[in-house]
């Protein structure tokens, strides 16, 4: 690739041809394109040059004395399959050119050729090389992330287990006395909290895996969002009251039929509602609204909580990301709730978006497909 200064990123191209005139003209065309060009007059020197210079592309004449072009192509391909080789061939040897491509050559230019013909093939070859190198790099990055992820999950699972183990271990070493009685009571309580944490983590982890595999979102039936949401609000009212949070629920009176899986939808909205209560302030509010808009259902859950700083707004949907900050420290969570919501929404053909203002609150908006009943004589009626 040619950068602004034209030097640092200069790519090397090697020309291997026994014909001086051909080397010279290739050199001129390629140098004009901005490449560093090295030429070699036979296969042996050429191969030595290729392994030393590690070029991006090699132009090889097929018909050379000594090591022939076909052999050169095969050896370059063996050395580094990402090096693009272009063979120059007379019309009489097009059959051999096809053999060369079987040995790993990228393409061929029949003699005589114009500068443009060579340029087009070289550019195309290098473009292909870039794409291949890019996708190879992406694949490596993905693999690295997968491996890191496994390490991270096991660390998350191990943390509460370690805490419980350490408490029990110290309790074993504790001499009897009033302090020991007090510690034992306090630590037993903590052990229960931490084992609960671990249970929840494993449960959420499994849920996430099930959602991902499609197992939790298999059904596609009409699910009325109105009673679903008001039912959830009722069920969570005790939790909200304990947190000092008021909940309101505004849903269409004649219902809002979603197309999806009832259990999965319930899980999705419950997660959002619980979050809205948990990450709220004392005397805060949670407003749940649902409506049909532009042919889809829009369910909003708005809180008056701590808000999500801008740098976290995409990341909160990633596994184990929990917003750091004073407000979030007090709450417990597995860091898997929102990833579960995002996956469920996605599996059901919807999306989840968020709008947040730090210190003011966050609104999660889920857009889902509406259930459209087949219009028959029996069902066509009060449908709007």
């Amino acid at each position: 690739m040619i950068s602004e200064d034209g030097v640092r990123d200069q790519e090397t191209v090697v020309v291997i041809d026994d014909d001086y005139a051909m080397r010279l003209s290739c050199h001129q065309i390629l140098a004009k394109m901005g490449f560093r060009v090295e030429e070699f007059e036979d296969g042996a020197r050429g191969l030595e040059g290729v392994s030393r210079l590690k070029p991006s592309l090699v132009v090889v004449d097929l018909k050379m004395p000594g090591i022939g072009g076909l052999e050169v192509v095969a050896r370059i391909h063996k050395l580094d399959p990402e090096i693009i080789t272009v063979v120059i061939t007379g019309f009489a040897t097009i059959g051999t050119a096809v053999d060369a491509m079987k040995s790993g050559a990228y393409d061929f230019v029949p003699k005589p050729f114009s500068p443009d013909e060579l340029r087009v093939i070289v550019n195309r070859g290098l473009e292909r090389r870039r794409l291949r190198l890019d996708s190879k790099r992406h694949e490596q990055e993905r693999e690295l992330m997968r491996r890191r992820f496994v390490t991270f999950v096991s660390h998350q699972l191990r943390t509460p287990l370690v805490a419980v183990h350490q408490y029990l271990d110290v309790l074993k070493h504790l001499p009897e006395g009033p302090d020991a009685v007090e510690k034992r009571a306090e630590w037993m309580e903590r052990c229960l909290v931490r084992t609960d944490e671990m249970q929840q983590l494993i449960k959420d982890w499994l849920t996430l895996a099930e959602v991902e595999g499609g197992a939790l979102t298999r059904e596609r039936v009409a699910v009325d969002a109105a009673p679903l949401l008001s039912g959830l609000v009722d069920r969570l009212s005790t939790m909200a009251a304990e947190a000092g949070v008021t909940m309101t629920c505004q849903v269409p009176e004649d219902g809002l039929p979603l197309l999806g899986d009832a259990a999965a939808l319930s899980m999705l909205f419950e997660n959002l509602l619980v979050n809205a209560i948990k990450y709220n302030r004392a005397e805060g509010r949670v407003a749940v609204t649902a409506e049909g808009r532009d042919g889809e259902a829009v369910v909003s859950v708005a809180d008056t909580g701590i808000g999500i700083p801008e740098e976290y707004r995409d990341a909160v949907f990633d596994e184990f990301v929990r917003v750091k900050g004073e407000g979030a420290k007090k709450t417990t969570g597995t860091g898997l709730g929102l990833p579960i919501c995002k996956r469920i929404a996605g599996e059901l053909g919807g999306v989840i978006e968020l709008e947040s203002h730090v210190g003011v609150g966050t609104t999660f908006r889920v857009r889902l497909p509406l259930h459209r009943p087949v219009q028959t004589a029996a069902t066509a009626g009060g449908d709007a």
Partner: protein
Amino acid sequence: MSSERKRIVLVDDDDDFAAAVTAFLELHGFEVHRAADGRSGVTLAKMVRPDLVLMDVIMGERTEGFFAVQNLRRTPGLEQVPVFVISSVYSAEPQFKVTPERGWLAHDEFFQKPVDLPALLKSITARLGGGEGALATNPGTIK
């Protein structure tokens, strides 16, 4: 009495783990000061001038403990303080070279979580001598 006690700074982001280890070390006569992240751990160590630092590795989402150790090594007066790393990232030995140029000293040690308390105590005692108020003289005084 407290002036005689060996001081330990414990840096770990898990409050429960830290509470348990603290109780155990206090039981054996050490004075324990706690920090929950690398940065406040270094600050605390600057103030407390500990005889030993116990350091977790993964705090938050990254290997914060390693950076904290390097910062300790650059802090006047703390360059030589022994650091014992306690982490769940090791199954046995750490997979990196423990070399001075990376901030590790020969007297630094590595423990895996959950930590083997008698082994930890043995190492600490070998490094610092015992805590002042040993178990026998001070039974049950843990906080």
